[in-house]
């Protein structure tokens, strides 16, 4: 056990410690808070790189290299609950990604939040989030993962509601927490079921873990009452947790509202890392999801099919909504939901490597897009409506350049951008899926829409004339952001391009890294079964989408802020439905929320009248009893006692009359007693 594996726990602990120290720091110690956060994140990054290097050095032979450290945590009766951490290729990848992107966003935040008075609190929460997310990544126990998962949800709540004085922000935070809670409840149920069936929650425990072969064989054999195998049931429940956390339909409603939080928060949590935790979870328990799949035509398990369909529906659903949104961050939020759907498709049809590759590339370019949006908002003096922006290309060139790189990566512009390779891998696997071709078609539609709405956004924001509202005289025109904000943008842009290299079919380094094989560079793979065909199809789709975007929004510059959208002019009804997000929120409000409110009213009535009434009546019975006791005491016991005392006193008075002070009387009594005694003795037989 090498040093790095033994001390892997340091990676999440350092940021958590920074959070702890930051929580007791004074508000004005900004430098201290920021340096604690950035310093701890930097150290964690170094450690993660060390772990990554270590995993690289282990040349696997088809088996994924995996090292675990388990320790007993809690004893009850004769059983032990164990926790632990692990280091395997998946973990190492996620560690490096989270630390790196996190570090860049931390640096960016020192510039973005410099005007905010709650600077210190922000960095404290950010560090706590980082620690929790890293904990999710290295956890070897489903229980430890769940604990860190909940912590991630908590910090998400704290950060979304960071500006808690804004009612919208507080409501959004609450909505996020409650919606993910529904998913977490299912997750918990799945976890409990898994524990009861397999007796352990450790993932890998030298053969005894809950997703190792012995446990899986047992789970597949167990059948529940509704015709599902236990493994499927547990997998679906755990996937429900991922649905909540990763914003899949139907639990996606919190993500757009979460944009109330500061932009670095949106970048870190709701683009790159936390929402990716759901995808990561599915990847982590992939053996459970895929157990029972044989080789053959219908060779996917029920769980994986559900994952794929949910992902496919989400991808298209969110992309449709994004077309009609006007808030710069909301477009990106729906885009995130859509891309997460893609990742789920990838996991379902292609396996861990396909889904995770898109996750990694998405983290970089989505964080880039969000940070760029933050830069735009910062430069436009907190304006967020794209209809009121415009012409920023010449005011903020660096931002524009990096944003364009990110946008092209997201659309999947061919060959040069990482998004192309990762999305292509997904589409390739979807096309070859044995169950159905529909996810492939849905994926294609989603790609088209993605290109379209991103082009729309870029034209609205960066091209044309400036449509900014002038609030007061001497208001400066939009300005480029400081270096501390543009430097991370540049770094991320570089990675958005370069990451594509590790996942091309010619050199599938990524998937072989995850599977423990060695990758070879072979350009001939391009010409294998249909890869080229899929690449061509996706390129055509991307260009079509870009072209449509240009047709609607780029030909004539957008002049007025209040003029209706082009699409709106053409199809007002459809546009209105899309803009209102398919009325999902309203639907929830009319059904679930109303039911919950009704239930809460009923419970309140119950509490007030029945439980409270019971308590009240018990207390009154007790009061009555005490009153009776008091009455008995006053009217029965006291007089009784008094009478007793009086009789004793009277008796005493009576006897005291015998003592008259005259000796002769005493002598008389003695004589009387003597006579009586003798009579008694004779009578009782004494001779």
């Amino acid at each position: 056990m090498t040093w790095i594996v033994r001390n892997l726990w340091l990676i999440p602990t350092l940021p958590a410690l920074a959070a702890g120290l930051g929580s007791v720091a004074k508000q004005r110690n900004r430098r201290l808070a920021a340096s604690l956060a950035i310093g701890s994140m930097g150290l964690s990054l170094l450690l993660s790189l060390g772990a990554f290097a270590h995993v690289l050095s282990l040349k696997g032979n088809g088996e994924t290299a995996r090292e675990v450290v388990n320790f007993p945590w809690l004893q009850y009766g004769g059983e032990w609950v164990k926790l632990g951490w692990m280091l395997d290729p998946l973990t190492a990848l996620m560690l490096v990604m989270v630390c790196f992107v996190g570090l860049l966003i931390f640096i960016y935040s020192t510039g973005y939040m410099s005007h905010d008075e709650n600077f210190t609190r922000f960095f404290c929460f950010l560090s706590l989030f980082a620690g929790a997310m890293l904990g999710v990544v290295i956890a070897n126990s489903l229980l430890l993962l769940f604990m860190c998962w909940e912590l991630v949800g908590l910090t998400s709540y704290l950060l979304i509601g960071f500006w808690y004085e804004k009612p919208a922000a507080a409501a959004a935070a609450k909505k996020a927490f409650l919606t993910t809670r529904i998913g977490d409840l299912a997750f918990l149920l799945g976890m409990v079921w898994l524990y009861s069936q397999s007796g352990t929650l450790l993932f890998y425990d030298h053969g005894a873990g809950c997703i190792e072969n012995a446990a899986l064989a047992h789970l597949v054999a167990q059948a529940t009452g509704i015709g599902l195998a236990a493994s499927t049931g547990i997998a679906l429940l755990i996937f429900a947790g991922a649905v909540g956390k990763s914003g899949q339909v139907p639990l996606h409603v919190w993500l757009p509202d979460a944009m109330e939080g500061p932009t670095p928060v949106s970048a870190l949590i709701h683009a790159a890392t936390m929402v990716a935790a759901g995808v990561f979870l599915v990847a982590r328990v992939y053996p459970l999801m895929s157990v029972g799949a044989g080789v053959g035509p219908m060779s996917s398990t029920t769980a994986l099919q559900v994952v794929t369909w949910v992902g496919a529906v989400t991808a298209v659903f969110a992309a449709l909504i994004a077309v009609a949104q006007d808030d710069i961050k909301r477009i990106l939020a729906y885009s995130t939901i859509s891309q997460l759907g893609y990742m789920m498709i990838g996991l379902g049809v292609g396996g861990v490597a396909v889904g995770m590759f898109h996750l990694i590339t998405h983290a970089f370019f989505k964080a880039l897009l969000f940070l760029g949006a933050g830069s735009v908002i910062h430069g436009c003096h907190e304006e967020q409506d794209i209809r009121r922006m415009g012409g920023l290309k010449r005011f903020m060139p660096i931002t524009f350049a990096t944003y364009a790189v990110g946008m092209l990566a997201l659309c999947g512009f061919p060959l040069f951008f990482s998004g192309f390779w990762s999305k292509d891998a997904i589409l390739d696997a979807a096309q070859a899926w044995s169950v159905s071709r529909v996810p492939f078609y849905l994926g294609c539609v989603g790609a088209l829409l993605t290109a379209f709405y991103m082009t729309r956004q870029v034209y609205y924001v960066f091209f044309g004339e400036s449509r900014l509202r002038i609030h007061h005289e001497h208001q400066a025109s939009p300005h480029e952001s400081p270096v501390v904000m543009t430097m991370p943008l540049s770094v991320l842009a570089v990675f958005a391009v370069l990451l594509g290299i590790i996942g091309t079919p010619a050199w599938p380094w990524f998937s072989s890294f995850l599977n423990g094989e060695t990758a070879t560079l072979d350009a001939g793979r391009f010409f294998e079964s249909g890869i080229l065909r899929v690449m061509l199809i996706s390129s055509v789709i991307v260009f079509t989408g870009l072209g449509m975007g240009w047709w609607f929004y780029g030909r004539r510059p957008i002049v007025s802020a209040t003029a209706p959208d082009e699409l709106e002019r053409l199809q007002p009804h459809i546009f209105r439905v899309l803009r209102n997000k398919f009325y999902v929120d309203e639907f929830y409000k009319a059904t679930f929320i109303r039911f919950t409110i009704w239930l809460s009213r009923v419970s309140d009535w119950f509490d007030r009248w029945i439980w409270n009434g019971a308590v009240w009546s018990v207390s009154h019975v007790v009061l009555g009893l005490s009153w009776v006791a008091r009455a008995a005491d006053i009217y029965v016991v006291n007089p009784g006692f008094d009478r007793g005392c009086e009789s004793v006193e009277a008796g005493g008075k009576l006897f005291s009359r015998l003592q008259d002070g005259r000796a002769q009387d005493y002598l008389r009594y003695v004589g009387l007693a003597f006579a009586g005694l003798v009579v008694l003795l004779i009578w009782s037989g004494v001779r």
Partner: protein
Amino acid sequence: MTPLANCLLLSALLFSIGLAGALMRRNAILVLIGIELMLNAANLNFIAFWRYGPNPEALTGLMFVIFSIGVAAAEAAVGLALIIAIYRHTKTTNIDQVNSMRG
């Protein structure tokens, strides 16, 4: 009746007479005289039992009476001294009137 019974009856009679006087007379000195009589009756009892009892050689009864006479003498002395002291204090020998110790 046996001699012993005679003596015992005499003793009982003397005792009762002494008791009667001690109980009924008002004067303190007469009460004391009654007490002396009672003591004498007891002495007679002892002598009678010594004489007609099982073991006259042991002289137990005789000894007891010797000591009893001694004690009676001492008691009479002290009692009379007390009566004199009370007389000096209350100027009367009427024991009905000496009742300041009533309860």
